[in-house]
């Protein structure tokens, strides 16, 4: 991942900023500038998510993605935010035992390392609400 490519969406990654269509009411994270329901008739505005949600499904990854080797095994989940949209993120915290339906909230953490260039990037992960 190049530096500009990461920086471009920094605000979204750091602060869980997405978008909201005023026309139909749907929330989008990752941000979308075209509403999937209203398309050109949509009216998109920025929205900062509360950061709470629930695990829809998850896995424990043993064979890590490139740049994530030091974190393996790690828990990856699809999390449905309370405002509606779902995203893919890691669930962390001492002795995470993720389960479907688990309540989680967002935290700011190191995401991964960018190979030879040595770039370390940060973003949103999730921890159990009761953890």
């Amino acid at each position, binding site marked *: *991942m190049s530096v500009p*490519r*990461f920086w471009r*969406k920094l605000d979204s*990654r750091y602060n869980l900023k997405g978008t909201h269509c005023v026309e139909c009411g749907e929330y989008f994270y*990752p941000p979308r500038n075209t509403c999937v329901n209203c398309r050109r008739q949509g009216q998109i505005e920025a929205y900062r998510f509360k950061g709470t949600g629930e695990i*829809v*499904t*998850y*896995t*424990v*990854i*043993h*064979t*890590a*993605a*490139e740049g*994530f080797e030091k*974190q393996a095994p*790690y828990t*990856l*989940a*699809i999390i449905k935010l309370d405002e509606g*949209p*779902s*995203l*893919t*993120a*890691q669930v962390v915290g001492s002795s995470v035992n993720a389960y*479907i339906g688990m309540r989680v909230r967002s935290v700011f953490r190191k*995401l*991964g390392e960018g190979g030879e260039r040595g770039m370390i*990037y940060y*973003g949103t992960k999730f921890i159990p609400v009761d953890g």
Partner: protein
Amino acid sequence: MRDVAIIGVKNTKFGELWERSLRDIVVEAGIGAIEDAGVGGKDIDGLYVGNMSGGRFVDQEHIGALIADYSGLSRNLHVPATRVEAACASGGLALRQAILTVASGYSDIVVAAGAEKMTDVGAQEASSALAAAADREWEGMAGATFPGLYAMIAKLHMHRYGTTSEQLAEAAVKNHRNGCLNPIAQYRNEITVDQVLNSIMVADPLHIFDCSPITDGASALVLAPAEIAHEYTDTPIYIKATAQASDTIALHDRRDITTLDASVMAAKRAYEMAKLGPGDIDLVEVHDCFTIAEICAVEDLGFTEKGKGGIFTEEGETAIGGLIPVNTSGGLKACGHPVGATGIKQAVEIVTQLRGEAGKRQVEGAEYGMTHNVGGSGATAVVHIFSRER
């Protein structure tokens, strides 16, 4: 629109072909299909080639031109050649583009090929190239891998429908059994459920034996308008339907994580076009990049209800001799998964079966066959239906 027939087919051997380059294998497949069809270079109006990532795997783009050149179709004949890319559905999409150009009347004899040379790079680099079929920015950057995405499908499928790891393993066991009967298959050894369950965990609940391998291979077929197909072969196989559908690039944006809506829609469009239903299909090649993908496919294509794919597989309904034989070639799991070639290989297998030339893995009396080719975690699906009779 004109009816279209397949008049020639060829697969190379699938596997780790250290001594052979991308151009070597794709030329072998292309020339083989042309010879099988009995057409000459001068007859060929176009070439479509499915290739996912020549740039990442062999540092080569412009694959269409390369392949036309080394097939002897460029310097004297100047045959137009087009590369088609839709991740692991590149081959199926190349076939669809070839069918559309013949059906429209724009071209007559067209070659549809697919190829991938994956073993020139290491396993980590190959995995990284494949991960580019997902959403790099919003899945990849969170640490998602391809097995990880399908593992999340599997986890929810198990939670919601009671599907078991043993049932997933049965898909791999059956595909290895079929692969033993296919001379071109990468793996021609039987495996057991215990071996699958005891193999290393890649992304819970998927073990390494739940995953398709890294493979080199190429496949090709030759298309012609149905009305002249008999001039070339006694056993043309007819295209009854070509259908394609899209869905969100990221798994997390899907309507339902355990359903590939793109597969459902592509199948629905294909059944309508062919005026057939799931009960009419005699065999199917599905996109089993992971065992859970085969379980979802038999549901999404309508062969069993949503949630019943695991038990359907466990009860042997997808084996040769079962209700609907699935992946007689060995599937992606045992035959191998050279990503750009897979969609074409699936069609070659169905043609071979409908011609009655599949040897020990022959499905007796097969009239209608189907292929199902998926890109990414389900953002593209391509479904074709083939028939022995026009």
